[in-house]
């Protein structure tokens, strides 16, 4: 699918979609969205990038191997649960902090990191699948 037209637009579409995916991830706690959907959107973004520009650029874009991203996500999710053990709470108990940054209140919490972990896992695993399939297709 390497038409000039698609190839020109795809990178921008991809970054737009990645941005949107992060948005969906971060607002998931309060409105529709969350790590899984965010991850799927991000993976779709890379999928489009891959279809337009090939697997190589996608791999370089992600820098890490997608499966490592997924593993890091799982690790992050698990560790965000472990955090509550440090304060002698039950596993996965949500810990919240609301620091003021530049005058606005920002919510930082273990459930947020958990959701980011979900995002990374989905992004990594689904991209890995898509890239693996795509690679098979284009060699």
């Amino acid at each position, binding site marked *: 699918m390497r038409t000039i037209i*698609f190839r020109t637009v795809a990178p921008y*579409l991809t970054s737009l979609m990645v941005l949107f995916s992060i948005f969906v991830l971060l607002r998931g706690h309060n409105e529709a969205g969350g790590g899984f*959907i965010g991850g*799927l959107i991000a993976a779709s973004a890379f999928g489009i990038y891959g279809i337009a520009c090939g697997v190589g650029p996608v791999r370089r874009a992600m820098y890490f191997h997608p499966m490592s991203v997924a593993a890091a996500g799982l690790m992050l999710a698990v560790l965000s649960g472990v955090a509550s053990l440090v304060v002698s709470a039950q596993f996965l108990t949500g810990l919240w902090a609301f620091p003021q940054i530049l005058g606005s209140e920002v919510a930082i919490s273990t459930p947020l990191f958990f959701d980011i972990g979900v995002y990374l896992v989905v992004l990594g695993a689904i991209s890995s699948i898509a890239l693996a399939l795509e690679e098979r*297709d284009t060699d």
Partner: protein
Amino acid sequence: MNLHDFAVAFFALALTGALVLLCIAFLLTVTRILLGPTLPDRVLGLDVLTNVAIGFIAVIALDSGYTLYVDVAIGLCLVGFLATVAFARFILSRGKTEHLRREARAGIDAEAGLSGGQRP
């Protein structure tokens, strides 16, 4: 009837009308997807179905007042595009094989009047 009442009534009526139209659109689109006859036709049908569904979501959001459904619509925009791209890619790749070129020819035959889908 003041303007407000009219606006409200008109809006409600418009929504009902829109739902009717969109249901018809669903029906027509599905018909095209089922009829085919070629794969691009069906993919096109799915693309339109995505658009109709986006519209449907918007109308339901208006109707129910839960405007947060717009997020669902956005998601559908994104993956709808992905689906079309992937299918285009699929069509392109399947053109590679001799075997499938036969299918493509058969598809064109079908377009020229033969019934779609049913071939030995």
